[in-house]
């Protein structure tokens, strides 16, 4: 990768050999594409000249479907299925947008529970991202440890809302029901259990020399390119841009907690390489634990369904609300015509914008590095295609 051969190869007689670019399909059944993504690689020998992502294999007409619902509430199970490894944050984004459209204030207890759930979900999502990234690179063990810890988060979700993956927990104006009484002690227990595990995970994977060799200086995304392509989340922060919607465009009650935005600094190589994106995710889990611990201490008593409207009929108008999902800026644009059904819903999914930069960052990389680059973007095809 350090140097690209520019002189054409010659035969033993000194004649210039004609070389041709080859097209190589990676996916849609390739395990490293994390779903049904097809990457069309134009390769010159081992070097990737161009990457064309072909998406749409998991398109389920989310936006069109929303227009044919009987009410706003029914959209929520569908938002779950967009980013299926971080369902809670998808619901969160939609309810924030719908509540802004309806101009209702939810009780403080609801906000606290939502923040706790969203941050637990962020940890669960990052654990999948880190675990599967390890598998992509060739480290199988961290994956199992990540899933062991994620299971504990899913247990917490299950005792709260009855589902392990697609929750349907946050409703417009409240929650489906309150947290059970033993949730708070169990969540505290999880925080105490999980903190040493982050260090264990970092020792095992992040600072592992083999892992560093595979990820440092690979897939370098400069800050200007990241901004131009609309990247967000760990992808943007890995490139050294200090931008987090939880702090810079506060929604819910994130301004009540003390925590830091993690930014890639190029500790192992260049700023914005795959390793930086990985370490941002690993450090964000620590910060999420900090937020959860503070929220669990401060959580007030109260009703969780106080503001739940019987019939949701927003006034004609439009709203755009965005939140920081584990993958980046997740926005919902809702147009209401005054009826009980949304006139139009547009979801701005972070994984889609993040994926669009893959062509830019993988030019000149080796084919083997393509796996490392695609894994570091942490795409969920359910969200890319919707």
């Amino acid at each position, binding site marked *: *990768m350090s140097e*690209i051969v520019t002189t054409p190869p010659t035969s033993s007689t000194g004649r210039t050999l004609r070389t041709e670019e080859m097209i190589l399909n990676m996916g849609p059944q390739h395990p490293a594409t994390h779903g049904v993504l097809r990457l069309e690689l134009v390769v010159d020998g081992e070097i990737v000249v161009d990457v064309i992502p072909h998406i749409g294999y998991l398109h389920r007409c989310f936006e069109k479907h929303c227009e044919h619902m009987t009410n706003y509430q*029914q959209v929520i199970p569908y938002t779950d299925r967009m980013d299926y490894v971080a369902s809670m944050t998808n619901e969160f984004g939609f309810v924030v947008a719908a509540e802004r459209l309806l101009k209702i204030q939810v009780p403080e207890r609801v906000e606290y529970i939502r923040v706790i759930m969203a941050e637990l979900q962020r940890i669960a999502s990052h654990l999948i991202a880190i675990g599967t990234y390890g598998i992509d690179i060739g480290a199988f063990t961290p994956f199992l440890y990540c899933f062991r810890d994620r299971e504990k988060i899913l247990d917490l979700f299950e005792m709260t809302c*009855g589902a392990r993956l697609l929750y349907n927990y946050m409703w417009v104006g409240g929650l489906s029901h309150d947290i059970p009484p033993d949730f708070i002690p169990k969540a505290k227990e999880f925080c105490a259990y999980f903190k040493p595990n982050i260090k264990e995970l970092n020792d095992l994977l992040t600072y592992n*020399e083999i892992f560093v060799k595979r990820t440092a200086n690979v897939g370098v995304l400069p800050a200007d390119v990241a901004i131009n392509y609309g990247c967000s989340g760990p992808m943007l922060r890995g490139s050294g841009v200090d931008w987090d919607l939880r702090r810079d465009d506060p929604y819910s009650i994130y301004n009540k907690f003390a925590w830091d935005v993690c930014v890639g600094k190029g500790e192992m190589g260049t700023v914005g390489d795959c390793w930086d994106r990985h370490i941002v995710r690993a450090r964000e889990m620590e910060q999420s634990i900090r937020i959860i611990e503070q929220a669990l201490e401060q959580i007030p008593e109260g009703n969780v369904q106080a503001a739940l409207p019987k019939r949701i009929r927003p006034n004609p108008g439009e709203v755009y609300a965005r939140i920081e999902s584990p993958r980046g800026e997740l926005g919902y644009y809702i147009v209401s015509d005054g009826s009980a059904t949304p006139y139009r819903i547009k979801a701005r999914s972070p994984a889609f914008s993040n994926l669009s930069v893959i062509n830019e960052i993988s*030019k000149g990389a080796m084919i083997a590095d393509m796996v490392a680059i695609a894994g570091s973007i942490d795409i969920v095809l359910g969200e890319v295609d919707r």
Partner: protein
Amino acid sequence: MNSERSTIIRKKDLSLWERMYIPEIVKGMKLTIRQMFAPTFTTQYPDERFQPPASFRGRPVLVEENGVERCVACGLCSRVCPALAIEVQAGETELGKERYPEKFEINMIRCIFCGFCEEVCPEEAIIMSQEYELAFTKPQDALFGKDKLVVPIEKVQTRLNFLRANR
């Protein structure tokens, strides 16, 4: 090509010992061996069954009380279902509830287990049970009629208690 972007900057030079990767492998193996003596997290599925908590949303069922289902065939569940999985046809009965579901069919291929039917039901007649082993060999098997859906109230009592406490 972005040659200026792909230049290698190596901040620390590795010694021969570090370049052999052996310390890293030993570190990894130490952790692996420690895990061998740690308690297991897995369950041996067909032998050990997972016991879902009361909040669990499994297969939707119709509650049967005193030998007759509670459902009055109002059709709210069918209207609220985001996946259009429920089909209800009402009939008249001599009983006090006056209406009963002549046909009640849930297409379990369509069902997304969101629990809206349970939430909207005014009679507490449709309940998310704790059953989670749902495998079909034919698509026709996934059409659950009243014969499969109606269960006696004793079987779903824990879920009914949970709903009363949390609503």
